[in-house]
C-alpha cells in the first residue's frame, strides 16, 4: 500500500478562453492535512471541482491509492472515498440535519429504516470526531459554523477517507475557525486525509503539514509547512514583482472630498463584512485599498455608492452626508459628483445586451444632455459615444455594437469613459484591470493618474497588489472587514502581504 492518497498528473482545464488549470501536478500524502493556497482566481476551486467530478479535466490523470481512476461525476468521487465541503454549502435549508446527511446515501427506498440507521451512525460520528449537532434541527436555524459541521458529517457519513474543504473559514468567526481546526486535527489523527483550500496564510501555517501554492492556474511550488515561512508563501502566491511602470508625479492632496466614519455593513446572511471602517479621501490623491478578495472591499464600495445599505456609520461626500443607512440613491450621488466603476462590469457596470452607446449613459440617463424631454436624444447619445470611443480608443469603434461583443479591456474602457468623462469630484474604482488585456492595463492606469492630477479624489480597490502599489499615494490594507494598517506606496510587498494575511495585526495584538 502506498502512502499517497491522491496524485494528480498534468491536469489541464479551460473554460472558453480562460485557462483555469495549466498542467497541474499534485501529490497528497495519506493522513496529512495538505493546504492549497493561492489568490482568488488562481484555479484552486476548479482543480478541486475536477477532483470531485463536477468538471472533467481536458487532459491529465487522477490516481487514488496509486490506481488511476476516472471521476466522471460526484458519485464516482464519493465511491472513491472523496468528500467535499463546498465554499457555498450544498445543504437543503428547510431539511433537518439528519435529512441532509442522508440525502443521496439513504440506503433503502423507504426512509424509516434508513432514518434510524442514520441516526445511530450520526451519533457514532459525533462521538468519534466531537462533532455535536442536533440531528433534528433545521439547517436554516443553525449558525454557519454548525452548518459547516453538517457538511463535514455528510462526507464522513459517506465514509470519505479524503476530505476536501474549499475556503472553509470564509464564513466563520475566529472561534468557529479554531474549532474547525481542532476537528480537522482529530480527523487527521483518525487517519483521514484533508485537503484544505484557502487564501489565508495564517491558516496554512496553523494546521497544514504540507502546502502547495497556485498562481494564475499553475502549481508553482509545494513545501513542507515546517520548512517554509509566511514570507516565502506570500511571495510565491503573489509572484515575483512584475515591474509595473507608471509615470506619476508627486501628489498634491487638497481638501477632504470623501469622509468615511465608522461604517459597518452586513451581507444578506447577516455576516459583518465591513467592520467600523473610517478613512478620508482627499482631492488630488489616490488611496488604494489592498486586501485579499472577500475581506469586505466589495461591500465597502457598494455602501459608499448607495447600492448596499449600511448598518451604521457616516459617509460625507464633499462635506454633505450620504444617507448610507437609509435611502441613498445611486443616481443622486452621481449628480453630486460621485462616479463609480464597479468591480463586476458584466452584471453591474454594463448591460451586456445593450449597444455600446446605450451603456455609455447607464446611470446618467436622466441627464438633460441626453434627453429631449422624456425622449432620449439619440444624436447626442451617439455623438457622446463616438467622442468617448475616440478618446479612450475603444475598439471596434462602433457605438451600435452589442456590448457583449467587446473584449474585456474594451468593455472596461466603456465603463471608465462613462464614469471619468463626467468630471466627478470623487471616483471610486473596483478592480480596474480585472480580466483586461495587457495593452489596456497601461492605458487605464494612465487615465487614473490623470484623474488624480486633475485634482480628483480617487479610491481604488484591487486585489492586484502590484496595481495598488503602482498607483496609490497611500495604501490602506483591509482584512476581515477592518482596515488593519496604512502604508506608504513604497512599503515592501512582504510587509503588505503580512498585513493582508492578518498576521501583522495578530503580532501587534499579541505584543
Amino acid at each position: 500500500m502506498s502512502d499517497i492518497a491522491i496524485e494528480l498528473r498534468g491536469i489541464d482545464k479551460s473554460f472558453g478562453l480562460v485557462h483555469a488549470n495549466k498542467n497541474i501536478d499534485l501529490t497528497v500524502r495519506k493522513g496529512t492535512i495538505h493546504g492549497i493556497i493561492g489568490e482568488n482566481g488562481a484555479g484552486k476551486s476548479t482543480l478541486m471541482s475536477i477532483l470531485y467530478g463536477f468538471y472533467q479535466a481536458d487532459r491529465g490523470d487522477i490516481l487514488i491509492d496509486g490506481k488511476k481512476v476516472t471521476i466522471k461525476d460526484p458519485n464516482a468521487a464519493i465511491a472513491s472515498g472523496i468528500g467535499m465541503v463546498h465554499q457555498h454549502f450544498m445543504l437543503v435549508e428547510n431539511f433537518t440535519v439528519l435529512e441532509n446527511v442522508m440525502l443521496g446515501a439513504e440506503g433503502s427506498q423507504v426512509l424509516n429504516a434508513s432514518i434510524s440507521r442514520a441516526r445511530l451512525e450520526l451519533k457514532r460520528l459525533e462521538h468519534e470526531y466531537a462533532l455535536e449537532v442536533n440531528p433534528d434541527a433545521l439547517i436554516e436555524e443553525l449558525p454557519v459554523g454548525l452548518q459547516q459541521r453538517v457538511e463535514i458529517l455528510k462526507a464522513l457519513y459517506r465514509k470519505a477517507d479524503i476530505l476536501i474543504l474549499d475556503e472553509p473559514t470564509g464564513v466563520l468567526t475566529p472561534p468557529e475557525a479554531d474549532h474547525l481546526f481542532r476537528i480537522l486535527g482529530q480527523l487527521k489523527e483518525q487517519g483521514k486525509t484533508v485537503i484544505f483550500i484557502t487564501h489565508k496564510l495564517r491558516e496554512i501555517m496553523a494546521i497544514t503539514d504540507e502546502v502547495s501554492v497556485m498562481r494564475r492556474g499553475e502549481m508553482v511550488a509545494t513545501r513542507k509547512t515546517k520548512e517554509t515561512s509566511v514570507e516565502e508563501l506570500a511571495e510565491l502566491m503573489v509572484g515575483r514583482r512584475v515591474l509595473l511602470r507608471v509615470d506619476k508625479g508627486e501628489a498634491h492632496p487638497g481638501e477632504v472630498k470623501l469622509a468615511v466614519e465608522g461604517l459597518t455593513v452586513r451581507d444578506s446572511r447577516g455576516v459583518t463584512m465591513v467592520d467600523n471602517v473610517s478613512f478620508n479621501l482627499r482631492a488630488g490623491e489616490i488611496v488604494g485599498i489592498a486586501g485579499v478578495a472577500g475581506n469586505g472591499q466589495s461591500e465597502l464600495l457598494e455602501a459608499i455608492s448607495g447600492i448596499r445599505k449600511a448598518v451604521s456609520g457616516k459617509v460625507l461626500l464633499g462635506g454633505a452626508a450620504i444617507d448610507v443607512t437609509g435611502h441613498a440613491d445611486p443616481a443622486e450621488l452621481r449628480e453630486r459628483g460621485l462616479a463609480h466603476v464597479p468591480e463586476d462590469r458584466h452584471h453591474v457596470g454594463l448591460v451586456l445586451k445593450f449597444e455600446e452607446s446605450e451603456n455609455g449613459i447607464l446611470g446618467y440617463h436622466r441627464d438633460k444632455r441626453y434627453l429631449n424631454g422624456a425622449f432620449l436624444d439619440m444624436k447626442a447619445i451617439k455623438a457622446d459615444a463616438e467622442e468617448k470611443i475616440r478618446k479612450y480608443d475603444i475598439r471596434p469603434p462602433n457605438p451600435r455594437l452589442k456590448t457583449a461583443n467587446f473584449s474585456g479591456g474594451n468593455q472596461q474602457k466603456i465603463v471608465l469613459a462613462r464614469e471619468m468623462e463626467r468630471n466627478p469630484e470623487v471616483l471610486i474604482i473596483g478592480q480596474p484591470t480585472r480580466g483586461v488585456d495587457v495593452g489596456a492595463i497601461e492605458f487605464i492606469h494612465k487615465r487614473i493618474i490623470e484623474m488624480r492630477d486633475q485634482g480628483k479624489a480617487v479610491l481604488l480597490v484591487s486585489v492586484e497588489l502590484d496595481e495598488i502599489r503602482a498607483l496609490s499615494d497611500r495604501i490602506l490594507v483591509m482584512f476581515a472587514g477592518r482596515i488593519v494598517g496604512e502604508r506608504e506606496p513604497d512599503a515592501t510587498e512582504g510587509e503588505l502581504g503580512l498585513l493582508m494575511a492578518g498576521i501583522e495585526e495578530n503580532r501587534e495584538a499579541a505584543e
Partner: protein
Amino acid sequence: MSNPYAKLPAWAEYGLIPLVNLVVAFLVAGLVVLLVGENPLEAAYHMVNGAFGRGEYIGFTLYYATTFIFTGLSVAVAFHAGLFNIGSEGQAYIGGIGVALVCLWFDATMPWFIVFPLAIVGSALFGALWAFLPGWLQAKRGSHIVITTIMFNFIASSLMVYLLTRVLKPLGSMAPQTRTFEAGGQLPKLDWLLSIFGLDIGNAPFNVSFLLALLAAFAVWALIWRTRFGYEMRTMGHSPSAGRYAGISETRIIIIVMMISGGLAGMMALNPIMGEQFRMQLDFVQGAGFVGIAVALMGRSHPAGIIPAAILFGMLYQGGAEIAFEMPSISRDMIVIIQGLVILFAGALENMFRPAIGRAFAGLGRRSAPAVQTGGA
C-alpha cells in the same frame, strides 16, 4: 455568460429563427392534419386562399390582426421589463368596460370621432387598472406575477359575467350583452384603404382601430427604444443589478410597465366592440390575450416583428374559418394548436435550433467579429 449564443446577425435573429420556429410549428400542425385524414397541403391552400383570396377575406384577416397587434404589444412591453404578463386576456376583457361605458353614454349624442378618443382613454384606463394590482403585488409584496395574472383572468371573467347579466344588460333583455350602440358608438370601416388596392371590403369589419393599432405599435417602439423610461425598463429587464447600480427604482418600473401593458391589452376591446359587434358581448376577447403571447414571442417582442406576426395569426384565424368550411373535419380549433406550437417552439424551445443555426453561421462567417469574452476566473 448570460447569453452564450449572442453572435447571430440581426436578420437571422429576427428573421431566420422565427421563420424556422414557424416552419416547425406548421410541420407539426401538418401532422395533426394528416392524423385526421386530410391533406395538409390542401389545408394550407385553403388557409391562404381564405385569408387573402378576396378583398373581404383580407379585411377579415386585418380585422383579426388589429386585435392581435394590441395584445401582442401588451405582452411584449412586459417582456422588455422582464415580466411575463399572462393577464392580457383579462385586461382586454375589463378594458371592454371602458369602451362600453363611453359608448353607452355618448353614442346617441356625439359623432364617432368624439366617442372614439374617449373610448380609447376608457379602454386603456380600465385595462391598466386591472393590471395595476398584479403589478403592485409583484413590486411590493413579491407575489409571482404569472400566478396573479392567471388568477386575475378568471376573476375578470366572473366579474364580466356578473356585469353583463346584471348591470350592463338592458332591462327586459335575456342576452348577456349591452344594448346595441347608436351611430356614435360605431367605428367607420377602412373600405377606402382597401379600395386603393382595388379590393372590395364586403362585410369585413376592418375598421379605424387598425390605424390606432399601427400607431400604438409605433408608440411602443418609441417608448421602449427612444424614451428615458424605456431605457430604464430595458435595463431592469436585462439586468436588475445594473438597474440598481444606475439608481432605477424597480418598484416604479414594474407598476408602470404593467399598467402600460394592461392599457394596451384594454385597447384591444375597441376593435370587436366598436368595430364589429357594436355592443359588448360575453366573452368578446375570445382568447386574443393568449394569442398575444404567441405573437410577442414570434415577433421577438419588437413592434416590427409583432405586426407581421399579428397578421400571420389574423391569417390563421380568417383562413382557418375557410379551412373549416372546405374541410369540415378541420375546425377553427386548428389555430389554437398552431398557436400553442408557435409558443412552444418560439418560446419554450427557442434554444433548440439556435445552437445549430449559430454553428452554421460560425462555420460560414470566417470574417469573425472581434468577440472576446474574458471571464473573471
